[in-house]
């Protein structure tokens, strides 16, 4: 039989990957809009994006639980459409993680987007690149560091998160029992050896992954003779 901790690892990686992908797809355009618009609604949206983090995860999870409930219209609608209730499903975890990681994705990316010089977009436009073309071929590559940081923060944060997951996931083995819960359980049940092992494994894995990500995406190193000042 597979070690249940390994199953948790699998679920966690799946959750973090899907969360990051969902953020990539949904939050990237949102961020671009926030970064570039001069419309005032931007100043309302910016704080709203950041709000999830001021709530303790468990509390946020609690409110999500209320939202997902079949007593609630949203929960009902979901159940009608997908044939099963939202709460305690993997989908619920994804929704919760996406909401909670949103600011960690949006904000660094926004900094990167705001640093893309308008002149380059002007040049691209006169060369015949439309808005989407410009976004994909100019803005995204120039914001590569921003994407990496955004994705790293969102991914890592989802791996480490557990308050929300605990609330809306229901800790179902093989489905919603993620690594962080397993780790927490080990600590709570005084299985310190297992906890240490799991934590050490998690840290080592994360370190190696992050190292590879950062190292392979380092900014093209200036040749040594350019290093005049800092």
């Amino acid at each position, binding site marked *: 039989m597979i070690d249940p901790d390994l199953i948790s690892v699998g679920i966690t990686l799946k959750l973090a990957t899907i969360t990051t992908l969902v953020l990539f797809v949904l939050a990237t355009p949102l961020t671009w809009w926030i970064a570039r618009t001069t419309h005032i609604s931007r100043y309302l949206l910016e704080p709203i994006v950041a709000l999830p983090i001021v709530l303790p995860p468990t509390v946020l999870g609690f409110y999500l639980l209320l939202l997902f409930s079949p007593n609630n219209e949203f929960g009902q609608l979901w159940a009608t459409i997908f044939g099963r209730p939202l709460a305690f499903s993997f989908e619920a975890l994804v929704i919760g993680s996406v909401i909670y990681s949103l600011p960690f994705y949006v904000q660094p990316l926004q900094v990167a987007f705001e640093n893309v*010089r308008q*002149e*380059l977009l*002007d*040049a*691209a*436009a*006169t*060369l*015949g*690149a*439309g*808005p989407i*073309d410009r976004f994909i*071929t*100019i803005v995204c*590559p*120039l914001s*590569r560091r921003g994407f990496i940081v955004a994705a790293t923060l969102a991914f890592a944060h989802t791996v480490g998160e557990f308050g929300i997951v605990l609330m809306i996931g229901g800790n179902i083995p093989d489905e919603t029992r993620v690594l962080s819960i397993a780790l927490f359980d080990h600590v709570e049940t005084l299985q310190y050896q297992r906890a240490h092992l799991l934590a050490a494994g998690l840290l080592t894995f994360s370190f190696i992954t992050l190292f590879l990500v950062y190292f392979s995406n380092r900014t*093209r190193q200036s040749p040594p003779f350019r290093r005049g000042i800092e």
Partner: protein
Amino acid sequence: MAISADIKLERLSGFSLDVSLTIPNNGITGLYGPSGSGKSTLLRLLAGLERGGPSDSVVIRSDEDTWQNESQFTPAEQRGVGFVFQRQQLFPHLDVQENLQFAIRRQHTQDSTDAGQVYEWLNIAPLLRKQVDQLSGGEAQRVAIARVLLNGARCILFDEPLGSIDRSARSKILPYLERLHRNLQIPMIYVSHSLDEITYLADTLYVLDAGRVTLNGSMLELSASLELNAAEGETASAVIACRVARHDQQYGLCELDFEGAPVFVNAQLYAPGEQVRVRIIARDVSIATTKPASTSILNIIEARIAAIELDTGPAALVRLERKGQCFLARITRKSLDTLNLVIGQTVFAQIKSIALLTDIIP
């Protein structure tokens, strides 16, 4: 594609632009004016990179379409207008080749320039594999020009394209641009601080000052205008039209016919019988009252003094006319008095033939 624009725009900083202009279907339109006169702003509006504020009125039409009026705005990428920026804007995440490919993949029209030619004239080949931040100032500017040329635009705006390009590269690029616009039959606007470059290239001229057009018309007509040239001092010049008479193989010269008088230039690009334009710099022209002999000056043209404009300094600008065509001579007031020159008098203009050599407009 002809373009006409009618622009009234006010910046918060106090600068205002108020111009009407028509860019003819082909030919190069020169835009000249002092720093801060609004040249770049005008180009940005034409390209669709700015649209003016709510209280401004910007109307821009191409012959196919209305690009901008109160209710309408065609975005830059749909106008097919190429733009060589004053501060070149290469994409830093792409190398030189990728920058050029970016333009090639998005060609506005198919009947485009020959890439090989562009590479050769701008000497791009040795730069292809370089990163953009490893280019020298002049190299970057050449790549920026190449990028626009390869983009197959239906109209090209040049905002001081040759600012950081050295003389020898410049003398290769200028004739190429000239030829290019002839072949492609697309309108170009050329902004420069150098009246030299503009006189060389432009068919039509707009002079801008503080956001207003102070002078405009055909280059040929304006070139001999004292008004434009008085302020030019050393670089005052005029353009005349000549017919190619014959080639002198031995000395590598070409004899032109300027209203019956022979004029020698060093280019042999055109066949006898063709019409060419020649630029004469006013300071290259001296005046003699008797026909000079035994001098190295080959071109001695009989002409009539049509006008004299005194400088505030010691110089005077003399407008000389030969059968309706005009050119200028810049001489000292002292000579004016010594030789007793008056309007209507017939004199001999000596033009150093060498001075004409690279200034031929083919």
